[in-house]
C-alpha cells in the first residue's frame, strides 16, 4: 500500500495541519510517512500545500510529480495540481471559491461542501477536519481511531480539550459522502 496525497489551498485554511494529523495517524498505525510542506512567505495569505506519503514500505522520495489523491481548496491549487493526479486517482475539492470546475474525466472527482458544513457546525476552524473526514471516507488509508490517537500525539496537552470538536468535524465530513 502506498498513498501519495497533496493537500493544497490558502495559507490559514489548515492545509499543513490537516497533513500533519494525517501523518501522525499513519505514525500511530506503524506505517512509513513523509510530510513535505511548501514553505516560505507565500504561506501568508498565498497558496500553501503539503505532500503526505503514507506507505507500508520505506519511502524513497518525499517529492513526487503525480498523486493518488488531491485535496484542493482554491482555484490556484486546482489549476496547478489537477493535471498531476494519477489516472484513476481521486480529486476532493470544496467548490467554495472555485469558479472553474475540474474537467478531468479519468479521475474520481468528489465535491465536498466543507465550508457550508463548517458554518452549519458552528466550527469554522473545523473546516480542514471536515475535509479530512471526507478523505478518510473515500480513502481509508488510516482509521478514525488512528487519527484521534494521532491528534493526541500531535497536539500539546493544553489543546486536548479540542479533540472532541475535531472528532465531530471529522464525522461530519464522513457523513457528507
Amino acid at each position: 500500500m502506498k498513498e501519495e496525497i497533496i493537500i493544497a489551498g490558502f495559507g490559514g485554511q489548515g492545509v499543513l495541519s490537516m497533513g500533519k494529523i494525517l501523518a501522525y495517524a499513519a505514525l500511530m498505525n506503524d506505517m512509513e510517512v513523509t510530510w513535505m510542506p511548501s514553505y516560505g512567505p507565500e504561506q501568508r495569505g498565498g497558496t500553501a500545500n503539503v505532500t503526505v506519503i503514507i506507505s507500508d514500505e520505506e519511502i524513497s522520495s518525499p517529492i513526487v510529480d503525480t498523486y493518488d489523491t488531491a485535496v484542493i481548496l482554491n482555484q490556484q491549487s486546482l489549476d496547478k495540481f489537477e493535471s498531476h493526479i494519477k489516472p484513476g486517482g481521486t480529486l476532493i475539492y470544496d467548490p467554495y471559491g472555485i469558479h472553474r470546475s475540474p474537467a478531468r474525466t479519468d479521475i474520481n472527482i468528489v465535491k465536498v461542501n466543507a465550508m457550508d458544513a463548517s458554518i452549519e457546525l458552528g466550527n469554522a476552524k473545523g473546516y480542514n477536519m471536515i475535509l479530512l473526514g471526507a478523505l478518510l471516507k473515500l480513502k481509508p488509508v488510516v482509521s478514525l481511531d488512528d487519527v484521534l490517537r494521532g491528534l493526541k500525539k500531535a497536539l500539546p496537552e493544553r489543546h486536548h480539550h479540542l479533540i472532541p470538536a475535531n472528532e465531530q468535524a471529522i464525522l461530519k465530513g464522513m457523513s457528507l459522502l
Partner: protein
Amino acid sequence: MNEDIRLMKGNEAIAHAAVRYGVDGYFGYPITPQSEVLETLEALMPWETTGMVVLQAESEISSINMVYGGAATGKAVMTSSSSPGVSLMQEGISYLAASELPALIVNVMRGGPGLGTIHPSQSDYFQATKGGGHGDYHLIVLAPSSVQEMADFVGLGFDLAFKYRTPAMILADGVVGQMMEKVVLPEQRQRRTAEEIRTQCPWALTGKTADRKRNVVTSLELDSAIMEKNNERFQRTYKEIEANEVRYQGYHLDDAEYLIVAFGSMARICLKAVEEARKAGVKIGLLRPITLWPFPYEAICKASENAKGILVAELNAGQMIEDVRLAVHDNVPVEHFGRMGGIVPNPAEVLGAFTDKFGVKFNDQTN
C-alpha cells in the same frame, strides 16, 4: 506503536539530538529554512535539564565566535544557519580549523548566490567541501538525506570533530530541514564533567594547574617555519580522516548499467527515479556519498567499472560533478542534472535527464 518513534522535522531532530548528545552550548541566529533548530531548543529549555546553554546571538558572526570560545574550553558547542549566514561564518570557521578546535556547524542550504531564495538548494557544496574560508583546511562534511540522519549526524559529527580536533559540518538542505519523518532519537547522555573534559581534552583552556604547561589556543603564528609545521600537522590529520572516515550508501550497484551519484534530499528523489527506471527495465544504480569530505572517490570508481554513464544530480549548477570526474578519470562519461535557485525536481525529471544525456529510453515513460 513503538513509543520511541517520533514524527518531526529535520530541523527539530537536530535540536532534540543536540540536547540528548549532551551538547554544552548552542549559539545561533534565525534564518529560514533552519529557524526551527533554535526555536525547538528554546522550547525544550535544556538549560533547566542538562545545563546546555542556548543563546540567540546578535549575528552569525557572533555565533561562530561564541562557538570558537566555547570550543577552546573543550566544551561540545555548535551553531546552525543557512547559506548566507554560513557565508558570514567563514572567517570563524577557518580560525576553528587553524586552532584545531572541535565544533559542529549545521548548514541547511537555501538557494543562492547572495540572499537568494529561502527554498532548498545544494549550492554550498564547494564552500563546504573545499574549505570555505581562507587557508588550507577541510571540514568533515556529513550530508543527511533523512530526518533520522539529521538526528544521528549530530552525535557522529561531534564524535568525529573531537576524535580529529577539527570542525565538522552537517550539510543539509531545505527539504531535509523542513520535512517531517519518523525518527528514533538517541539515548539521553550526560554532559561531560569538567574533570572529563580535562582528561579527554588536555589541550583545552580549563585553567592552568601546577602539573602542566600553559595551554594556548590561537590561529596566529608569525614564525613561518612553525606555521608550515602546523599546516603539515593539519594535512596529516586530513590524510588520516580520508583513510578512515569515508562513508557512502549504495543502492542496486551490483548490476547497474548506469549510475547516479547524488547526496542529501536529491539522493531520495533519485532513489525513486531508480525504482521507476528498474520497473521500466533500465538498470540504474545509485551511490549516495554520506561524507562529502572525505569524498568516496574509490567507491565511485569501483561502482562505475561496468557503467555506461554516470549522472550526477544536484540542486546546483554542477559542483560535486567535479569530484565524481576526479573519481572516474574520464573512463566513464559523466553528465550533470541540476536545478537551481530553490527549485526541487521530481523523479520524472531525473529520468528525463537520462534520456537527454544518454539517450536511455524507458518502456513506460508515461509520467
